């Protein structure tokens, strides 16, 4: 009998301070949200760092490839290959035919 009364009492008391309750829930929610967003922020930062590191490795690779390309396509090397391996000659004088666009 008295237990029921106590329940009612508590409920009615809560009801009287429903505004406070809502505020409390909001507070709790926002605290949880802060935790959640901080976590998400960290995950994103970790991801960003990874992606940036990946960019650095890619850039390093690019630079090395660029260097390789330049070394292989170096003018004197290409010319030497053309002359020695492919028996090509640079046309000059009468062999040189100029094509002019109007």
């Amino acid at each position, binding site marked *: 009998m008295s237990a029921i009364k106590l329940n009612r009492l508590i409920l009615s008391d809560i009801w009287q301070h429903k505004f406070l309750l809502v505020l409390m829930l909001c507070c709790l929610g926002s605290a949880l949200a802060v935790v959640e967003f901080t976590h998400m922020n960290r995950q994103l*930062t970790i991801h960003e760092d990874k992606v940036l590191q990946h960019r650095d490795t890619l850039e390093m690779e690019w630079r*090395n490839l660029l260097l390789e390309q330049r070394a292989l396509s170096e003018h004197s090397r290409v010319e030497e290959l053309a002359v020695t391996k492919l028996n090509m000659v640079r046309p000059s004088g009468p062999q*040189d035919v100029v094509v002019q666009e109007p």
Partner: protein
Amino acid sequence: MIKKPAAPKKQAKKNQQPTVISWRFAFVIISLFAVFSGLIIRAAYLQVLEPEMLLEQGDMRTLRVKSDAAMRGMILDRNGEELAVSVPVQSIWADPQLVLRNRHKIDERRWHALADMLQISPQQLSDKIGGDDSKRFVYLQRQASPATVDYIKQLKIPGIAFQQESRRYYPAGEVTAHLLGFTNVDDQGMEGIERQFNDVLTGKPALKTVRKDAKGREIEVLSQTNGQASNNIQLSIDQRIQAVAYRELKKAVMQFGATSGSVVVVDVHNGEVLALANAPSYNPNNRKNTDSNRYRNRAITDTFEPGSTIKPLPVLAALENGTATMDTVISTGYGPVRIGGRLVRDINGYGDLDLTGIMRKSSNIGVTRLALGLPPEKFLDMYYKMGVGAETGLGLTGETPGVLREQRRWGEHALATISFGYSFTVNAVQLARIYATIGNGGVSYPLSIFKSDKKPLGERVVSEEHADNMVTMLEAVVGPGGSAKKAAVPGYRVGGKTGTAKKAGIGGYSSDYIGSFAGIAPVSNPRIAVVVIINEPSGDYYYGGEVAAPVFSAVSGAALQLLNVAPDANDSRITKVSGVANAG
């Protein structure tokens, strides 16, 4: 505390009422209060009064400043080909303190493997690290190869660490070595463009303060300062022409046993340098055992008496001042002539020559007569206007313009020697500028090593008519009866002038020569000026027409083709395409 009621005692029933023993109660209260207030005070002390120490300790464990080093900028040629590229590499360093403290734990085989990878003996490695355990840093190897770094990482020796650095590579190697220069191990330019534009090429690293978690992951970016990106530099050099120029020059220097040589190719329309090469060169990617005087960019630093290559200037001076025309005939006689007490001689007696004849035969007596027919200041004015004694505008460090010394009173012999290229000095780029001016119809541009879309401010120094006449005369030099038949280029009309100058030594002229050739191509509509200098050829051949003219021929022929200049010789075939259907 709740006391369990003791066994009931009848007489004690009255005393069952609990009483507060006041001193105990006070003790408990005070103790509790003291404990909690102690905690609160401690917390307040840590939080409010002295939080720095803990913050600092925390930061020391989690905060890291990351420096995102900007790679040194690239150097490109006029077509965007990379001539200098930086590549990230790693340096290997040791923390002697850590190494020495863990020395007994390190497996001896790993220690030997490390020494092997560094290509030193284990003893040398120990010496390098030393015995002083207060030292915290010593480089083991700078700019190590990635394979070495990977291997050493796997050895996992405590106290051995790695540091990000960058290494500069020059794909064209010795071809561009003098112009570009090189950087030292700390990425600072030491020579050439690298040194002069070090500030432009170097960026500022971006700094990022981050917080890391226990696993070393970056969880929070606290502050970030933007660095300054490095800039690329685009030169006016055409790598293809540069390669041909260097190759031909190297060949000639070897063939004629010369001590050195230089080639300069200039676009006459804007003064941009298309190629600038010297031989002997060096490998900028591996400079071990390179004699430091090989680093010198001789084309801009070395001055010399130009000899006959300067002869267009007295002829132009006479034309400009009206003391001679294209039809004037000068008597050069058939033997040496005494001028101002000393003899001036030609190789042969040429008799009567017109201006073209003087140029073609390179007659010293002829140009002397032209020079002496003018007031000294008018004659020398042509030299100054053409840039003798002045900087070319390249603005490269180490550029040493030659000297034409002013005198109050000019002796006749002094003027005579100036007219055929002695008693004053020039460098190769100055000579190139003179010929570029002639090729450009008399408008002089400062030389430039950078590609620019804007036309520089030119200055007219010779009338167009006289400049064009000079180009025609220069063509005669290369033609039949001239002194430089080997300079001819198949398919193109070219003009130029040879020079063979004795080098001044101690106490007079030595038996060493400088063979040179300076020319313009193509004659019908000049596009490039090329200067070739061969210093001290030691073989039987030393005339400019023999040693330098073939280089001119090869370089300008290739350059004209690469620049898509249409052949202008009479026998060249030109096919006109109608409509665009055939294009491509």
